């Protein structure tokens, strides 16, 4: 917990402060944190005996912070209306007291040299600390979250370096929420926290807004002396106001259930805060280093030129929200407090469902896996069973040369080994050198890095020019010792390949793609090049355009995928494209999605996990352009609830699999839309979407008649009311607590 930090003036972009825990802030992504010049300030120590909640807000540049002591020791925690406790943390040094309480000294940072009075910069740090127990004095450092709210005041001298951005950025003022301990003597208050916290869960993202509001409203109203470290400046009125207000807020929260006369005042504060909040919220958009200009401009255009179905749907949903808001009034601030419009009562009768016996096929396979070494022949076993057997053997790491030899014997048509990491070069050579591959149509040797350097190929797979005449599907993912030369040898022996998987083949370069386009340009349908780090994407664009029949292109984990590259490819070959995997392509923006929607009308599968820069506009483009989508994967994209709901309403008619993993804002609007419009949906992933309570999930599940799998990893808000009470008999729920899920990891709608 001890944090010693010095800060400098943010004259240019700097990395975030050290010691920050790895939790993403709720404000939009920003890389720069304004630093503060370290000043030789007095450090006032917190008086142990008196702890008071202390929130300082440096509202205006002209005002200074007074150097007041924190006299109260219950400054340590600021409890928010949501029940969370915000820990105060000073930005300088901590002094540990004898009895174990952390005494924080609070120091305010100065923006500039002390000589320049009008351009002072203060920095406050808000630490949100989840105090789970509510009773411990020391807070758990693991849950600390740095929240920096910069207030928008530009300071000429300090912004000299930032002016090239063309806008006045960077405030020198930030809000600091200081940790405060709950008063130990007020056990009554502590119990309240415990109850509140337990009731309200561990959502942290929403704290940001309440903090801003409370801070602002407090700053405006109260007048009290706050403890802040300051040097020679006179007391800062604004800060004192804030302190006073903060204490009041804290007390208000503390006595929330008491319903004192504070409520009307806090109401008043809240209104003021809402008016001013926008001014104070700070978003630094200086993220890109060397991006395409075209990427930037695309995102700013409107989604549609005319009121299309998506924007109409958005508007309807937003109007509905506003009407609800007006009706309920501004007293309910957070989403969680708002009563969900979904009425769903658990009606399922789960205790009566009988358990289905495992099938005889499964039982036999299990016995076979255990006794794999005793198998003498796999000759008349159909391919499907062989594949399943191999899968299970690889999963339990019982696959060995003996079984591999059996697989390779005869004239096999399919050899699929999902994990060849146990196979050595010698074993591979031994098994394959006499293999009759004339009928082989599918060869899958994933994770074969160990056994497939270039020099074994001429004696195994590339023995002769027509070694693999019928091979249509080749998967050599993880072949990290395979170079361009080796791949050429294989491909020259297999002229009919329609699907080639070269994921994680780190030695392959762009010349491999050129080679592939020359030999397989007219037949190749599927190309997987995830994480091929040595491929320079700028160079392979022209080669990619040569594949006439390409239907599946997988470019996951290639961080250099850019909008320009994608657009170049899509304008040429987008029409035939059915699957596009763009996981982790962080540089893509909305304009790339616009390109996809315009050029790929036949797209069935689209994976946009971790493409974090997308906004709601991207959903609009997709809704208007790609009408045949069956599988859509989102993860950690920041879409709003209304946008996702509008998308589902307009475009999800053919969706079979949808993942909204970590799309945290989805809530009741999405639930309503999913229930009404997703009758073909079979797999739904709502992991980490904590705004979906039991009744939303139950409503979705009971109304999506085809739903077979629901993934709710990390959804701590789900209770037995939903799990035992829903009435969808075919549904499998994955991700709850300690339920086993490893058997279901590979579930896609083709497996069901």
């Amino acid at each position: 917990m001890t944090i010693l930090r010095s800060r400098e003036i943010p004259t240019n972009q700097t990395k975030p402060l050290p010691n920050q825990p790895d939790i993403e802030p709720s404000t939009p992504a920003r890389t720069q944190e304004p630093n503060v010049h370290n000043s030789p300030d007095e450090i006032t120590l917190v008086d142990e005996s008196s702890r008071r909640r202390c929130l300082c807000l440096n509202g205006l540049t002209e005002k200074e912070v007074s150097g007041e002591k924190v006299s109260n020791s219950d400054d340590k925690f600021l409890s928010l209306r949501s029940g969370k406790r915000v820990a105060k943390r000073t930005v300088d040094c901590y002094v540990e007291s004898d009895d174990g309480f952390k005494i924080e000294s609070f120091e305010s940072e100065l923006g500039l040299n002390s000589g320049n009075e009008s351009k002072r910069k203060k920095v406050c740090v808000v630490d949100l600390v989840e105090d789970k127990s509510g009773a411990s004095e020391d807070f758990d450092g693991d849950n600390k979250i740095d929240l920096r709210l910069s207030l928008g005041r530009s300071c000429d001298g300090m912004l000299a370096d930032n002016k090239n951005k063309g806008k006045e950025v960077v405030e020198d003022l930030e809000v600091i929420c200081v940790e405060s301990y709950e008063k130990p003597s007020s056990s009554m208050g502590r119990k309240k926290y415990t109850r509140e916290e337990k009731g309200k869960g561990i959502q942290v993202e929403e704290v940001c807004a309440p903090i801003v509001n409370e801070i602002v409203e407090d700053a405006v109203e109260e007048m009290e002396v706050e403890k802040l470290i300051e040097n020679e400046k006179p007391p800062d009125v604004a800060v004192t106001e804030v302190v006073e207000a903060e204490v009041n807020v804290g007390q208000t929260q503390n006595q929330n259930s008491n319903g004192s006369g504070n409520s009307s005042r806090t109401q008043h504060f809240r209104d003021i805060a809402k008016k001013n909040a926008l001014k104070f919220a700070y978003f630094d958009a200086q993220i890109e280093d060397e991006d395409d200009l075209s990427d930037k401009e695309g995102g700013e255009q409107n989604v549609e030129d005319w009121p299309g179905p998506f924007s109409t749907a958005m508007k309807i949903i937003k109007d509905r929200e506003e009407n609800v808001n007006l009706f309920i009034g501004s007293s309910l601030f957070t989403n969680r407090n708002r009563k969900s419009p979904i009425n769903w009562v658990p009606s399922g009768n789960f205790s009566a469902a009988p358990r289905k016996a495992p099938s005889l096929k499964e039982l036999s396979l299990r016995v076979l896996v255990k006794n794999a070494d005793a198998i003498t022949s796999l000759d008349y076993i159909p391919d499907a069973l062989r594949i399943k057997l191999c899968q299970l053997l690889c999963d339990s790491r019982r696959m060995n040369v003996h079984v591999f030899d059996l697989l390779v014997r005869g004239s096999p048509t399919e050899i699929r080994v999902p994990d060849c990491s146990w196979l050595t070069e010698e074993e591979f050579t031994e098994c394959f050198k006499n293999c009759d591959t004339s009928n082989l149509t599918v060869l899958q040797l994933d994770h074969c890095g160990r056994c497939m350097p270039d020099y074994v190929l001429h004696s195994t797979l590339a023995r002769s020019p027509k070694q693999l005449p019928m091979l249509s599907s080749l998967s050599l993912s993880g072949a990290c010792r395979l170079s361009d030369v080796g791949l050429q040898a294989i491909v020259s022996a297999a002229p009919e390949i329609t699907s080639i998987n070269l994921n994680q083949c780190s030695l392959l370069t762009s010349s491999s793609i050129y080679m592939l386009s020359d030999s397989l340009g007219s037949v190749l349908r599927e190309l997987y090049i995830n994480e091929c780090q040595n491929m320079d994407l700028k160079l392979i664009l022209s080669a990619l355009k040569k594949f006439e029949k390409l239907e599946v292109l997988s470019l996951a984990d290639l961080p250099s995928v850019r909008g320009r590259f994608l657009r170049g490819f899509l304008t040429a070959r987008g029409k035939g494209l059915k699957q596009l995997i763009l996981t982790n392509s962080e540089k893509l923006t909305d304009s790339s999605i616009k390109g996809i929607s315009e050029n790929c009308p036949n797209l069935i599968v689209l994976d946009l996990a971790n493409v974090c820069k997308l906004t709601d506009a991207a959903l609009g483009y997709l809704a208007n352009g790609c009408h045949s989508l069956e599988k859509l994967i989102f993860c950690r994209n920041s879409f709003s609830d209304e946008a996702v709901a509008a998308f589902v309403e307009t475009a999800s008619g053919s969706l079979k699999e949808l993942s909204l993993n970590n799309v945290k804002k989805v809530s009741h609007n999405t639930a309503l839309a999913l229930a009404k419009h997703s009758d073909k949906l079979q797999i739904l992933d709502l992991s980490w979407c904590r705004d979906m309570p039991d009744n939303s999930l139950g409503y979705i599940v009971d109304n999506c008649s085809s739903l077979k799998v629901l993934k709710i990893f990390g959804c701590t808000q789900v209770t037995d009311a939903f799990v035992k009470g829903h009435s969808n008999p075919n549904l499998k729920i994955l991700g709850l607590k300690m339920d086993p899920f490893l058997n279901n990891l590979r579930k896609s709608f083709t497996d069901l």
Partner: protein
Amino acid sequence: MKETVKLISAEGFEFVIDREAAMVSQTIRSMLTSPGGFSESKDGVVTFPDISTTVLEKICQYFYWSLQYSRGKETEFHIEPELTLELMMAANYLHT
């Protein structure tokens, strides 16, 4: 009272089991209930020229074990390793 069906193995052995037990296999279920006047549905006799006697006997045992399982009594179903390959193929064919 109880309806029974007869399953005949490759060697000609006849196994008479309850209709409900035989219905555990999707293949047999559709054979016995398909409209179309097939002899299986009329007589209640199904012949399996590809399944040996020992395997067919084990399959019948599985049928009864499965019914028991779904009624709540969950025990273990032991399979002799020598039988497993053939049993797996037969089970695959019978959709059970």
